[in-house]
């Protein structure tokens, strides 16, 4: 048992936290509210209420309508209660927003307003995220606008990122000017520069970024975020994804990385940030996307030392919920629209590996996005009752784009055989072309979509990622010859 001193410290700490909000549960079950007759009654009552609501909002013309589980489990706990409350909030949102519409003009306004107007002082919470703000907003714009970014906006994006670049890239890109370089800020900064197609600047910093990345590499195969920083699947993805875009990947850079990633898959099938922690949507995205950057042949997924694809498929599809239609990031956690991308992007990647065109319900996710996450004033939010923000707007739009497209992997072996017969050689890319750049897409609805197709390994428009890599492949070819 804890000694007296520990107990004093604990009660002091709880006091501090209690000032802010009520503790959600007591570790000692005696203190916890027991399910008695009242809550039993309440449980039945809400279930009745829920079914009634579901019946009332059902629209026979829709491919998705919320469905309550026919299986009843009367266990009560904090997790069950918050889940129950969230389901009711979401059903309420479905009732209030019966129509499936996409308010493009409001979103474009929201994005422009966010870029151009001055942000109140409490936005200082994003002061270490300047490149992220540029990526989230520029990318949201690119996904839904028919017009390219205005040239003055492009210039200002370039200015901002330039101020965050540390020693021409030798120290990476920082979260703000005069801060220290950070692999995630670098990732966001590079994606923003890819959006503005500023290849000149990218070309200038890419040899230095390579050196910086090598300095972040750990003996286990993963990468650190920065000097003395954490290393996990996220930092590793941030490095690999930029390296592939700028064509600076080398054998040395990726040595041991796939082997390390494999140790992050958990007993549940998803990936954790580091071995032995809980499987999580964001880290799982980073892990699977990393495999698409490390592997160049589909058959590598069936290698003995690769990860368990079936286990990951199962974990990924379990993230979609029947009443909400949206996606959660972990087992027994609530839906959140940002997982429309972090989890949502797993599906097309897994579909391309398994040759299955639909592993999840695109319709259901689309309903959650348009009817529960979309704000009529522009932007997207986590869930009803929360506010829109740049982050959720970008990742929800990315997720919506995934609902509108299918992906397959071009069969490289077949293609190579064919080309050999025809006496052709693949010249446009190097022989180790990562799978991320071997994806092919088609639109779900034939030829119309509300958003641009994204590359699910990047969360930026498909053509922009392709154009950037092609630019550097060509450039390196020319330099070599």
């Amino acid at each position: 048992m804890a000694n007296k001193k520990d107990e004093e410290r604990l009660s002091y700490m709880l006091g501090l936290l209690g000032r802010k909000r009520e503790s959600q549960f007591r570790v000692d079950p005696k203190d916890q509210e027991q399910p008695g007759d009242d809550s039993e009654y309440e449980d039945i009552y809400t279930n009745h209420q829920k079914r009634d609501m579901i019946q009332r909002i059902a629209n026979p013309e829709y491919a998705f309508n919320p469905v309550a589980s026919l299986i009843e489990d009367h266990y009560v706990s904090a997790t069950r209660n918050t889940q129950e409350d969230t389901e009711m909030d979401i059903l309420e949102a479905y009732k209030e927003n019966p129509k499936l519409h996409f308010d493009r003009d409001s979103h474009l306004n929201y994005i422009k307003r966010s870029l151009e107007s001055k942000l109140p002082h409490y936005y200082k919470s994003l002061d270490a995220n300047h490149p992220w703000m540029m990526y989230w907003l520029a990318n949201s714009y690119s996904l839904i606008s028919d017009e390219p970014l205005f040239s003055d906006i492009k210039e200002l994006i370039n200015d901002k990122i330039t101020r965050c670049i540390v020693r021409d890239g030798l120290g990476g890109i920082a979260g703000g000017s005069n801060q220290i370089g950070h692999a995630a800020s670098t990732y966001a900064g590079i994606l923003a520069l890819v959006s503005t197609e500023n290849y000149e600047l990218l070309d200038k910093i890419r040899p230095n970024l390579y050196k910086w990345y090598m300095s972040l590499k750990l003996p286990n195969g993963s990468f650190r975020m920065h000097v003395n920083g954490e290393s996990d699947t996220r930092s590793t993805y941030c490095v690999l994804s930029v390296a592939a875009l700028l064509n600076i990947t080398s054998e040395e850079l990726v040595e041991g990385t796939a082997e390390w990633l494999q140790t992050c898959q958990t007993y549940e099938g998803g990936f954790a940030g580091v071995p032995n922690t809980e499987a999580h949507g964001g880290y799982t995205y980073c892990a699977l996307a990393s495999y698409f950057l490390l592997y160049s042949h589909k058959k590598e997924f069936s290698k003995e030392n690769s990860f368990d694809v079936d286990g990951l498929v199962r974990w990924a599809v379990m993230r979609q919920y029947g009443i909400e239609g949206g996606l959660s990031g972990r087992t027994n956690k609530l839906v959140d629209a940002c997982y429309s991308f972090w989890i949502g992007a797993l599906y097309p990647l897994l579909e391309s590996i398994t040759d299955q065109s639909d592993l999840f319900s695109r319709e259901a996710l689309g309903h959650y996005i348009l009817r529960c996450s979309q704000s009529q004033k522009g932007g997207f939010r986590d869930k009803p009752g929360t506010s829109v923000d740049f982050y959720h707007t970008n990742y929800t739009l990315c997720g919506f784009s995934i609902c509108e497209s299918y992906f397959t992997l071009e069969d490289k072996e077949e293609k190579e055989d064919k080309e050999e017969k025809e006496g052709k050689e693949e010249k446009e890319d190097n022989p180790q072309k990562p799978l991320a750049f071997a994806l092919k897409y088609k639109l779900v609805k034939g030829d119309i979509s509300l958003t641009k197709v994204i590359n699910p390994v990047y969360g930026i428009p498909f053509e922009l990622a392709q154009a950037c890599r092609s630019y550097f492949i060509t450039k390196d070819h020319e330099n070599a010859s």
Partner: protein
Amino acid sequence: MATDYNFDDVETVKINEETPQLCQILYDDEYKHTIGILLGLLQIREYSERALYLTEKALELLASHYTIWIYRYDILVHLNKDLFEELDWCEQVALENEKNYQIWNYRQLIITRILATTDESSKKKFDPHREFPILQSMLESDPKNHHVWSYRMWLVKKFNLFKDDRENEFVNKCISADLWNNSAWSHRFFLKFSQEKDIPEETFATEKVYVQDYIIESPQNPSTWNYLTGIYKKYNKSIVDLEDFCLKFVDIEKIDDPNYVKSSFAIELLAKIFVKQQKNEASIQLYDILGSKYDPIRSNYWDYEKKKLISH
């Protein structure tokens, strides 16, 4: 606390104030002033008491400013500060910034440094149990805080607390307080099964009984079913053993009647067991009813599982 440090000689730097600028934050004066001086000191690599003081002020204003954490660590090392005091101070910051994660990586750095700079006989030997109160209060407030659980995992591994009584008691309590807390189950799996060499056979048996009791208490909980199938996979045991257990939750004869179905996970596991028993037809029927009735949101996935059986 000393406030009489003088910074008049420091050249402050701009913190994203240039105009015109996209997403320009209208910093309050205190923030602009503090961060401006601090980043100025960082540029000239000043490792001093006044810089240390200012990092504290700055982190009070914005705990997620990772640059300041990195700088603060370097200052501590240069000034050879008492690292135990630093851990105490850190706890305050953690409690005031529950969602912050930089602090947990920082704490690992500090402890790693303590271990590297003290020896066994030192009076200042680090006792990992000193971490339990802060971890407990953080997890009571947010029982699924991913960063705190990750830090807890690191601590257990670093100090070999796998069999520590207090650690095991804690995770038991977290689970019994909320059987649906998946973070607690994940941590349990780590405690019981992550050491490659040293997992005794009896752990399999005791954990199986432990989780099965909780499945009976709440049969539609994905966390417990994942744990159960997870240990079968870990020990390479055949899931066919679980047929009778699954049949507690579903009456195959009356499967169309929801009154006879207590768990969709039992149906799913039975479908997999039937495949192992070469009863593919029976398995396909179960996938069909999952897709049409008990788990329709995943009907595409159940179709995919079915297709795999037909094509093989």
